[in-house]
């Protein structure tokens, strides 16, 4: 059975393609790109999909997501997270290790990988923890983690506060050529902060988290990456100062990359004024100056990828006092629409650039052979309808996490079809599951 995607605008930044053409898929692989001869398309063993008016991209990769399984299945599990990812246009997602137990050994990493294969909707790549139990004290057995399929290490959710441990982590992970994904936060500075520190934290009477709580750690880690030669990736960059540090480090040849989230690119701390806990996220939504700097850095190429930091929570952790609420935003199912509506359609970011940040960008950081439509590669493909207008309704999310600050907002440009390994896993608004 062949799949012919016909008439869509094919945007594959890795190979510099941005034109209306066809993509031919056979046995789970991309076999041809370009004008497909008529009879080929008419053959009875070929399913033809009319993509006129749509955008055909390499499958989107999210290198930063929380699937919560094992341990926190009431927030999300690998099945619901996979469905949500497919509905959000993601074909490959990386699962952060802050589960219970923590993914700090091969057995747990193997469980995540195995469970994801059973579910079989999207590619789920586990991330192992940097330290045992994410306690920040002793390195995890990284060789074993990599052996079990981990593509990176991270203590995301919390920082590695000890500089000596972070130094050794960068050094040691370098042997396996996996990046260290760093959650940069000086927890003594962020303390009990609830939102970005600045004028609005004064007005809303909420304790602030200064930009410096992030920047100090970005600065430290950049120095340690330089010292060790290790591969450092900065998670969810949210401040102007962090960008300056990363820019300087890159100029010096430090092996450093970074991601930003859709919410840090499109929302400011003003949203917190409603005391709606769905706006509570770590790092916090920042003020206009930071958001402008992030947008500029995305356009200039300083930022290497966009990641959702999909952080689903149970309703009771969000439907409460702001100070009691959990940090995090359920991001899979709004990411693309937010990027399309707020950044692409407004002219802030070119479409091909946005696609690169969701495909070749994260693939390069992870060192995986994905993120392009080059013939021969696995047919992971995301098709966007750039003109579909829909209002965000978390009640219709596949994710268990309904926590989104975008609820009720009308957005234009949504995932239309998601294809993983040549199989359609999402179309017409529905996730298609494999018949087990």
């Amino acid at each position, binding site marked *: 059975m062949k799949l012919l995607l016909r008439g869509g605008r094919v945007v594959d930044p890795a190979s510099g393609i941005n034109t209306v053409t066809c993509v031919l898929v056979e046995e789970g692989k991309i076999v041809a790109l370009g004008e497909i001869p008529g009879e080929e398309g008419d053959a009875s063993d070929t399913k033809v999909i009319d993509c006129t008016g749509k955008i055909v991209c390499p499958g989107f990769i999210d290198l930063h997501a929380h699937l919560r399984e094992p341990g926190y299945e009431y927030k999300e599990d690998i099945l619901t997270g996979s469905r949500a990812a497919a509905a959000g246009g993601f074909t490959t997602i990386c699962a952060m290790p802050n589960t219970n137990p923590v993914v700090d050994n091969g057995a747990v990493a193997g469980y995540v990988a195995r469970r994801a294969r059973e579910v079989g909707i999207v590619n789920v790549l586990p991330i192992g923890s940097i330290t045992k139990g994410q306690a920040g004290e002793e390195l995890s057995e990284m060789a074993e983690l990599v052996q079990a399929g981990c593509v990176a290490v991270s203590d995301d959710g919390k920082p590695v506060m000890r500089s000596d441990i972070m130094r050794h982590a960068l050094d040691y992970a370098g042997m396996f050529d996996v990046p260290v994904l760093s959650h940069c936060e000086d927890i003594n500075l962020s303390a009990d902060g609830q939102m970005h520190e*600045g004028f609005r934290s*004064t*007005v*809303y*009477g*909420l304790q*602030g988290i200064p930009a410096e709580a992030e920047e100090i750690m970005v600065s430290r880690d950049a120095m340690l990456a330089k010292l060790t030669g290790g591969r450092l990736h900065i998670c969810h960059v949210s401040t102007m100062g962090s960008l300056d540090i990363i820019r300087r480090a890159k100029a010096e040849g430090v092996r450093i990359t970074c991601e930003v989230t859709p919410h840090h690119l499109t929302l400011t701390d003003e949203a917190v004024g409603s005391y709606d806990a769905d706006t509570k996220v770590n790092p916090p939504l920042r003020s206009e100056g930071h958001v402008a700097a992030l947008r500029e850095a995305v356009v200039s190429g300083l930022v290497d990828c966009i990641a959702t930091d999909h952080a689903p929570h149970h309703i009771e952790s969000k439907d409460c*006092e*702001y100070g009691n609420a959990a940090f995090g935003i359920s991001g899979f199912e709004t990411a693309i629409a937010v990027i399309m509506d707020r950044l692409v359609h407004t002219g802030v970011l070119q479409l091909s650039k946005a696609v690169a940040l969701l495909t070749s960008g994260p693939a390069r950081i992870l060192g995986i052979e994905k993120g392009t439509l080059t013939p021969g590669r696995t047919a992971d493909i995301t098709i966007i309808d750039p003109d579909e207008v829909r209002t965000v309704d978390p009640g219709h999310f596949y994710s268990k996490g309904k926590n989104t600050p975008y609820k009720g907002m009308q957005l234009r440009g949504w995932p239309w079809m998601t294809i993983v390994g040549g199989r359609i896993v999402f179309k017409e608004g529905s996730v298609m599951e494999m018949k087990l």
Partner: protein
Amino acid sequence: MSFETRKDLLGLKDLSREEIELILDTAVPMKDVIRREIKKVPALRGKGMITVFYENSTRTRTSFELAGKYLSADTSNLAVSTSSVQKGESLKDTIKTIEMMGPDILVMRHSMSGAPHYVARNTKMRVINAGDGTNEHPTQALLDLFSIRERKGTLEGLKVAIVGDILHSRVARSNIYGLSKFGCEVRVVGPSTLMPPEIERLGVRQYFDLKEGISGVDVINVLRIQRERQHVGLFPSLEEYAELYMLRPNHLGLANDGAILLHPGPMNRGIEISTELAEGPNTLVNEQVTNGVAVRMALLFLMMGGRRDEIAA
């Protein structure tokens, strides 16, 4: 003008000058009621009011309760420390339970900023914020405004210094919002570590030096300092705080003639205010307490649909 379109009172931030004036004007005849032999008017007969305080309070809770009773409302109080909250009941469930018992007005205090805003969104009851975290304490500011206006005749153009822990003070914030709407020059005075970020963008000036800060002012509002702030490293000791910021009798000469002193209570004598001043003739601390009842009566009355002209002056 009335409060019919306003369901809740969550802060002075979003109240207009006219609305504040209406409350203050209505509080004048209410204060007369308190002084009467028979302290009871039937204005809120058949209405129910409940106070729910998640944080300790002496004056605010009692003040609301008496205000309600003087207006003939049926008042009751949820003692949070002996309630199901201690069994882990969520705020949402607690409020729903109360709502189902039928009161019209919920007066709440909470240690977390925005908690009353969250509650207001989730209940049909009218919500009055009796202090939320470090956000606002609107009725305290209203009684401060009332006390100042009563003594000075007007609020217009006065210079007011608020002294103390501005960072954690909801009283300071509500006072800043309220006073600014009447064209007052507001100063905030205290150690740099107890100043909120970018506070001057609210149109106030900050002073780290007490003497400089109170020079030429008409009103000094002294805030309570809490020892727990020392433990998180915001200042070295209460002794040094008192050395730098305790208001003493000799300071009054720096302020304008007839300057008055306010304190929201409870006072730490010998720390933020000297005992002599705490009991001085220009100190309105006790008057503030009475005014608090009057202002809250006015607010309850207006929020339940009362009109200023229904109350005889």
